[in-house]
């Protein structure tokens, strides 16, 4: 992901960093306990829950959410927020579908352009935030509206359906007949993301930026540049999520991803990240996304009324984050 020239001297680990890293690793364990508890309870309540098929389904069902949440983890670590991911997801999906099905471009090219559209939206977010000095909440809120609007303009408000089989292999091909390609892709992205944040200096710099912009800047980090890169990456990932969703439904939807930004933020925060910035892990985010996915799946299997589902999901989010915060305070 990062080129060698991104090695910035200020990101070398020192004592303060090691302690922060240790705390992050601890924070990763909290949500995992919650997830394990949830899995145990649901396996007892529903015999269908712990089957191989169902577990694969859950991973498949959270794949789009997880990809978006991966980008959001980096954004939130820098102390920012990205509300535009749902709209950017739809814009990338519709762009690819339109370029291929209406404009007649080769599908592979349309896929690349769709990803670029996502990256560009992220880049614009980053520039608005760093050069335009907009608070991330406002910049990405504006992008949320603009990207959704453009999606509707391009699609004329209608879904664009029917993609080549090669593209649909993304969801239809299964390794050993079990694990869908889309899930493998998500796992690969998470491994790469985790390695980047832990090992690359520019990845670790994000924690310093989230901890304190001013200190990070004074210690020689190129704060603006790292932030722009982070939002661009989040945009790319939102684009990838949009393409994955389109492959899954065999249709690009103009209203895709509406409201998903809240699930994304919830997944990241359940995973132990702090909205104040400076804390969060990729592994925690995957756990957070799994908690949301497992909960939705389990409530479906148990045939819980849709009214109560909303109550339960809200309560679990509150409980998960509260447990984490209390435990952290005890650690200090």
């Amino acid at each position, binding site marked *: 992901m990062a080129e060698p020239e991104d090695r910035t001297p200020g990101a070398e680990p020192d004592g303060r960093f090691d302690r922060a890293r240790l705390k992050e690793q601890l924070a990763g364990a909290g949500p995992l306990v919650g997830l394990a508890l949830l899995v145990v309870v649901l396996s007892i309540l529903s015999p269908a829950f712990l089957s191989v098929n169902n577990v694969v389904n859950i991973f498949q069902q959270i794949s789009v959410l997880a990809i978006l949440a991966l980008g959001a983890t980096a954004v939130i670590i820098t102390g920012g927020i990205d509300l535009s991911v749902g709209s950017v997801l739809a814009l990338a999906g519709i762009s690819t579908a339109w370029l291929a099905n209406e404009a007649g471009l080769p599908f592979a090219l349309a896929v690349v352009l769709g990803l670029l559209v996502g990256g560009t939206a992220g880049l614009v977010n980053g520039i608005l935030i760093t050069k335009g000095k907009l608070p991330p909440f406002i910049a990405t809120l504006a992008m949320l509206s603009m990207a959704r609007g453009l999606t509707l303009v391009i699609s004329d408000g209608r879904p664009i359906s029917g993609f080549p089989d090669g593209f649909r292999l993304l969801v239809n091909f299964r390794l050993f007949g079990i694990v869908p390609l889309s899930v493998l892709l998500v796992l690969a992205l998470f491994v790469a993301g985790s390695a980047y944040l832990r090992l690359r200096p520019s990845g670790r710099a994000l924690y310093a930026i989230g901890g304190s912009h001013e200190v990070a800047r004074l210690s020689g980090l190129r704060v603006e540049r790292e932030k722009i890169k982070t939002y661009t990456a989040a945009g790319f990932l939102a684009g990838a999520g949009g393409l994955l969703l389109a492959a899954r*439904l065999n249709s690009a939807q103009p209203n895709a991803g509406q409201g998903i930004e809240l699930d994304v933020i919830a997944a990241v925060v359940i995973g132990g990240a702090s909205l104040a910035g400076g804390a969060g892990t990729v592994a925690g985010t995957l756990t957070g996304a799994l908690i949301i996915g497992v909960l939705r799946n389990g409530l479906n299997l148990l*045939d819980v009324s849709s009214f109560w589902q909303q109550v339960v999901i809200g309560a679990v989010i509150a409980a998960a984050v509260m447990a984490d915060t209390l435990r952290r305070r005890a650690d200090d």
Partner: protein
Amino acid sequence: MRSTRRRTRLFAILAVLALTATACGNGDTNEPDDATDADAATEETEATDADDTEATDDETADASDVTIGLALSTLQNPFFVTLRDGAQAAADEAGATLSVSDAQDDAQQQADDIQDFITQAVDVILINPVDSAAIVPSIEAANEAGIPVFTVDRGADGGEVVTHIASDNVLGGRLAAEYLFEQVGGEGTVAQLEGVPGASATNDRGQGFQEALDGATGIELASSQTANFNREEGYNVAQNLFQATSDLAGIFAQNDEMALGAVEAAEEAGLTDLVIVGFDATDDALAAIADGRMAGTVAQQPALMGELGVDLAVDFLVEGQELTPIVPVEVAVVTTANVDDFLPES
């Protein structure tokens, strides 16, 4: 410094606009009478289906004196073009005069249109409001002028309205369920995908489904879960239903988006015999039915809606017929057998 502050303020305004736009956008999903439902249903026959209009054939001399104003929200949408054609045909048959206005989805324009109708002293105004709230002053003006008002498809938030004529979502839910039960062979386990919790379309379509379920003997409801009228959620929830119920024979989805999500999930799971019935008759759903991937859907009948509006208005004026506050319009089940009648001409 100054310019930065000004820029910040500009973006604050933009943000508020964005928020407003989002809020409006979300509202649309819940609306059963939304125009996106509409472009498919262009059935123009079925005059005999209108049981509510027994007196339509009376060619009373008085009917020829009747002038009806029809204030439409837009003629850009084929749904309302078909509605107008239905109204025109009914007016021609009754010998009444029909005057049609097109507000082009502009509430201000519609207020002017209705003012013109009042000036012309039409006998009755049928309104398909651009906006349920913004139309209220216009209805009150018509009330003051002593001109009775009917609303069509979309209702009004206030003013005195004789009756509201709209598609019957309860009937649609029941017909869809009955068709589903018939397709699974009269017995077996079925599931329902619900719309946005609390939305009127969810409640009405769900009520119709429940009525059919209560009347069916061999059918068991395994599960009824929301997928928020959304295709992706339809896919996920259907996938979960397959896990929970291994012998699922059919699914009723309260809109076509969720049904199409269920179709993809069923195909992926290799459940080729699963019967899936949707609602709304969107272009995508009609195509899926024509391809045999989906069993059926429910279509609104705008022509019948227009026809019923004119017939009821004439009856009300000429014979003083009492009307209920809401007149439901029949909907039609689209199946693999009759889907060709509903497919958009290309």
